[in-house]
């Protein structure tokens, strides 16, 4: 497993470089928006990856609520944290794309607002995990994550249910896309998904190590003849 990580890291880096090349050079220039439309190849895959990670967080939280397995709790924490990072990318690249195309940085329409609310829910989840010292924190956080996950399909399909300035979804929506653009989009999504997987993997190892060290500290306190309980 230790050897697999650097190999996968190099492969992912190469894939990200290839995906960048596809997005900037190979993908055709959109007729109305011009080159700024290429933000699409970072904005949409980041959103899909964030949704995927929030789904993993949901599944792991549910598993933790049922089985109380510490590994499920770690997976839930890690996927939420990395999901928030990707969702932050979405919330920042979106306005950068909107400014030259819509003439505004932000509008309080349903897709944008619901994405911001989703981000706030998962940031609250991370705050709860970080600052609550109660022994029940993982259970409370898992319950919050299960409810928070309900927001994900709402965000995705909000553009179906409400009149909005945001374009229709590429997958399962009414919009159409040039096959060459779709190809580049999928390559970028694959690259970002591999990247997210590796980041989650390293964050998982870090969290597990952190918990082991915390346990060791607790044990050392108990055995310490200078002040601990013997």
């Amino acid at each position, binding site marked *: 497993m230790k050897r697999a990580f650097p190999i996968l890291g190099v492969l992912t880096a190469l894939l990200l470089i290839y995906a960048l090349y596809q997005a900037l050079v190979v993908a055709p220039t959109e007729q109305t928006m*011009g*080159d700024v439309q290429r*933000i699409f190849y970072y904005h949409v895959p980041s959103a899909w990856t964030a949704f995927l990670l929030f789904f993993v967080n949901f599944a792991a939280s549910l598993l933790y609520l049922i089985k109380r397995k510490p590994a499920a709790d770690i997976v839930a924490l890690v996927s939420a944290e990395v999901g928030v990072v990707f969702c932050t990318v979405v919330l920042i690249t979106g306005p950068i794309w909107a*400014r030259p195309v819509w003439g505004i940085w932000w509008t309080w329409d349903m897709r944008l607002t619901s994405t911001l609310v989703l981000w706030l829910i998962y940031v609250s989840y991370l705050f709860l995990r970080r600052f609550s010292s109660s022994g029940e924190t993982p259970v409370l956080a898992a319950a919050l994550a299960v409810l928070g996950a309900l927001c994900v399909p709402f965000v995705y399909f909000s553009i179906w249910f409400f009149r909005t300035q945001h374009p229709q979804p590429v997958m399962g929506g009414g919009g159409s896309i040039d096959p060459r653009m779709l190809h580049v989009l999928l390559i970028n999504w694959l690259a970002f998904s591999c990247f997210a997987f590796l*980041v989650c993997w390293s964050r998982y190892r870090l969290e597990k190590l952190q918990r082991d060290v915390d346990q060791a*500290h607790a044990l050392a*306190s108990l055995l310490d003849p200078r002040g601990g309980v013997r």
Partner: protein
Amino acid sequence: MKSGIPYLFAAYAVTWIIHSAYLGTIVSRYSQLKREIEQLKKPGGRS
């Protein structure tokens, strides 16, 4: 429409700045943890 290159560059740069910053926090936490482990390994050592 005017050239959107500066916006395109900004969006791509911001994406990698955010990811790099997050990776930086992981690396820094890992280094801190390694120091703690070294401390724990010392005989009678406890931070």
